[in-house]
């Protein structure tokens, strides 16, 4: 086919439908994760009574911040023209989390903090966030195939990270533990795992 013929065909063809926005996809992942959590595990006690403690909102802030930052990075990575990476939102989140953890270790007994990891909530957090996040990551990858990532490996990793963070926000309505140390470890590990898994397994799926 001659190039001019191709141009004529493309000009006459209906413009391709714009894929769903990644932000909307993330909101759906969070919603589905929350619905699955309510059905399978139930709401945490304070939330069920309609009076969640302030620490719950701090946890939601941390996880939501992570979801937004990773989603913004994913959005930039899903385009063919690489743009300048913004380190400061992630750095600010890391500093905020580090301050929360430091305050906790300065004010709360170490045995109380570490005791949270002996409760069944710890494996429950790891497993739930990983499962919900994996489903979300599959959804993200299916969607990003319609985008055009400059670096598929980086994009696949960020898809895993953003999906895990979005799923963690939904799951957090069940977990009654609001310790910053617990949040960083129990929610951070599945995020790192899915980021690594995405980078390792999925770049080929994102070729365009």
């Amino acid at each position: 086919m001659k190039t001019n013929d191709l141009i004529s065909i493309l000009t006459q063809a209906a413009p391709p439908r714009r894929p769903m926005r990644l932000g909307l996809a993330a909101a759906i992942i969070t919603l589905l994760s929350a619905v699955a959590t309510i059905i399978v595990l139930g709401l945490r006690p304070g939330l069920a009574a309609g009076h969640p403690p302030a620490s719950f909102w701090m946890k939601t802030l941390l996880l939501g911040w992570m979801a937004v930052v990773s989603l913004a990075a994913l959005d930039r990575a899903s385009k063919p023209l690489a743009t300048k990476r913004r380190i400061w939102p992630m750095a600010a989140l890391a500093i905020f989390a580090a301050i929360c953890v430091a305050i906790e270790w300065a004010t709360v007994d170490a045995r109380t903090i570490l005791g949270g990891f002996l409760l069944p909530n710890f494996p429950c957090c790891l497993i739930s966030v990983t499962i919900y996040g994996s489903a979300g990551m599959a959804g993200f990858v299916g969607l990003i195939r319609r985008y055009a990532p400059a670096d598929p490996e980086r994009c696949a990793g960020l898809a895993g990270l953003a999906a895990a963070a979005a799923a963690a926000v939904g799951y957090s309505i069940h977990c009654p533990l609001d310790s910053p140390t617990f949040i960083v470890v129990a929610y951070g590990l599945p995020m790192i795992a899915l980021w690594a898994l995405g980078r390792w397994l999925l770049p080929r799926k994102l070729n365009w």
Partner: protein
Amino acid sequence: MRARGGDAHAYKQLLTGFAPVIRRMVAARVGRWGGQHYVEDITQDTLLAIHLKLHTYDADMPLLAWVNAVARHKLIDHLRRIKGATVSLDEEGMPELVDGANPEAPGIALDLRKLLGMLKPPAGEIIYALRVEGASVRELAAAHGLSESNIKVIVHRGLQKLSQLARAG
């Protein structure tokens, strides 16, 4: 951007304007290892990708840089597929589309206007006249009531600023 808004005429102008630019860039690259017969395939692949992925273009970015990125991706993808001779794919080796491109092509003219408009007047006007229209430094000095060395300084600083703007995306 009218082409993205469904204006078929603008869209055709855009694709027709970019086709020779992409072809030239691809030819310069694959010509090094005797792959001229792939030029048209890669050009068409790139045009198809532009059509399918146009929604990933941000209007506040230079269109030419976006097209360049798509073309580069398609070129590398093609080279990888055919497993051709070992070719260095480092960015230094990639010719810039602006070089030798037709500045009147719609997308390029749009980017040029956008970028030159960001410079402090009359730098944009002087650079356009000097580099695109082919005016001489002496003519520009007379037209703007400045010395020739002033014109050269304005052009030098303007190009530096343009380079920074283009790198910043």
